[in-house]
């Protein structure tokens, strides 16, 4: 079955992407060798979020296993824009699939720097804006505020011709309002969900387990929440939606498409199986058939009653 599709102009061999920060193509190549490149598991590669300046990330512990999920508190470790441009970005552009660079900043000015710099590099197909972060001026989390979100999009829109995907936080009452604001501001696509604010207690001493005190929940545990948000958002906007949150097989991936997502992303499941992306893609034909769809397009077109 032909699973080819596209995401706001970016051609995709299948609707299966990776969630930002859940697959390091360079480290994977060290561990698995060139097989990772030859059988690259995703139809597009979304980089881990980078910031203007280098970040070491959070102190350990950074991980906590939960019932059917996990909490992470990684803290966006990354080399910062300058080293990214001259280093790993060049390796990423050599991957056999379109590259989407994820960026985060604490101000519109820094976001602008990141967007312009990344857009100037040939081989970048799109930019994902991670807006689960406070605006240093207003102190508000951009992705929690429709007004802040629309203003940011309006400020960034003129700076690039690349498709801009905005990655929403699920820790809001009405994600569809933030999505609508992003669309009004000029976003080309919405991706969700990011992780759910969570914490864990150290069984040994009753203190907070995570070095940063708290983190974000992901994995199958959050899938029902992600499905509801993907549906609410896709009903509120015209632009395509990248659905993610606990996808661990083709059936759950198809659930997201039926809920309104055009394409999906696999995150935590990559940790359990490095071929998770390949497994989801290979299972889609069967899953579509079992649900009575002749093609991926039919499923993407179907609206949930």
């Amino acid at each position: 079955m032909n699973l080819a599709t596209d995401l706001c102009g970016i051609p995709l061999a299948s609707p299966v992407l990776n969630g930002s920060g859940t697959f390091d193509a360079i480290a994977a190549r060290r561990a698995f060798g060139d097989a990772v490149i030859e059988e690259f598991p995703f139809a597009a590669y979304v980089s881990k979020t980078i910031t203007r300046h280098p970040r070491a990330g959070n102190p350990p512990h950074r991980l906590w296993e939960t019932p059917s999920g996990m909490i992470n508190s990684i803290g966006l470790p990354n080399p910062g824009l300058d080293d990214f441009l001259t280093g790993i970005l060049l390796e990423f552009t050599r991957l056999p699939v379109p590259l989407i660079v994820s960026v985060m900043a604490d101000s519109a000015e820094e976001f602008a720097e990141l967007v312009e710099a990344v857009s100037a590099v040939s081989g970048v197909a799109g930019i994902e804006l991670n807006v689960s972060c406070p605006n240093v001026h207003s102190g508000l989390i951009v992705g929690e505020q429709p007004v802040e979100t629309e203003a940011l999009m309006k400020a960034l829109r003129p700076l690039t011709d690349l498709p801009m995907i905005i990655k929403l936080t699920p820790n809001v009452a009405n994600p569809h309002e933030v999505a609508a604001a992003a669309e009004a501001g000029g976003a080309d696509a919405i991706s969700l969900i990011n992780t759910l604010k969570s914490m864990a207690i150290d069984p040994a001493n009753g203190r907070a387990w995570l070095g940063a005190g708290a983190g974000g929940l992901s994995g199958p545990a959050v899938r029902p929440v992600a499905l509801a948000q993907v549906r609410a958002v896709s009903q509120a906007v015209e632009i395509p939606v990248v659905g993610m949150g606990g996808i661990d097989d083709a059936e759950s991936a198809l659930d997201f498409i039926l809920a309104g997502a055009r394409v999906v992303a696999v995150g935590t499941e990559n940790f359990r199986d490095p071929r998770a992306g390949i497994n989801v893609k290979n299972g889609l034909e069967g899953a579509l058939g079992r649900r009575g769809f002749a093609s991926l397009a039919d499923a993407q077109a179907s609206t949930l009653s």
Partner: protein
Amino acid sequence: MPTERPQAPFNRRDCRVAESHAAGGYRIFTLIDEEGPEPAPGQFYMLTTSGAAPGFAGRPFLPRAISVARVTGSRGSLRLEFLIDEVGPGTVQMAKLGSGDSCGLAGPFGSPFSMPKELNPDAVGAVLVGGGIGIAPMAVLRRHLVSRGVPTRTLLGFRDQAHSGGVDELFGCEETRLAYEDGSSGHRGYVTDLLLQILTGDDTGGAVIYTCGPPAMLEAVRVLAAGHGVPVELALESPMACGFGACFGCVVPKTGGGYLRLCVDGPVVRGDEITTAMAGEAAVGVEKDVRTRSE
């Protein structure tokens, strides 16, 4: 800069459990890997059991990192022996596996131990210091060094009989010196007492130390080695989600700032690459803010 590391097949494969039996307070179980390369000493695998453990709602969810304790056979039919300490849902599920069952395996992953001469050109011998479940990688390394004619002394420490196992099987009749904190056998006290005797006793100019075990023991070994100017490689542990560099979760602080991902930059690190072997405990001190950004 660890020696050439074997690369893992790009998959998580189902492997047959050949055998499983209790060994003292631990358990040894054997998987047949029909695809992977022979792992280098110090490397580990990510093991996945199916289903959740009774009493642990929805756990284990993630695979578990386990060092290989002995490797026999050859590529195509490798026998991988693992030494397991049942401390939670992941190891409980592993311990349940019997001959004929299947277990998910990914790897081998991580950095191997260096050869002594890579750490010290004048090296003439190796001292291996293992503690508790941490004796597993020491067993593989010892066999590796001995087979290459490297004079090797092995010191193993345990809390008590309940927290020990596999010594006879994994180290055989070879001369190993044991320390039990409860004095139930061997030296009464810490294995680092034995190490200190060696370091203070004979000439240590040509010695190199390799160690794996609980954080407090590793830290003591690291400090002793540094104090005596003896090169040391430590096999560290930290909670892992993926094992191949994808999650950035398995970090320990590195000398000069920043962090090492233990699954790709480790688990074997040189003493001078880290500032402490007790990073896990570090979390406790740190000031916590419960409302951090999500990734």
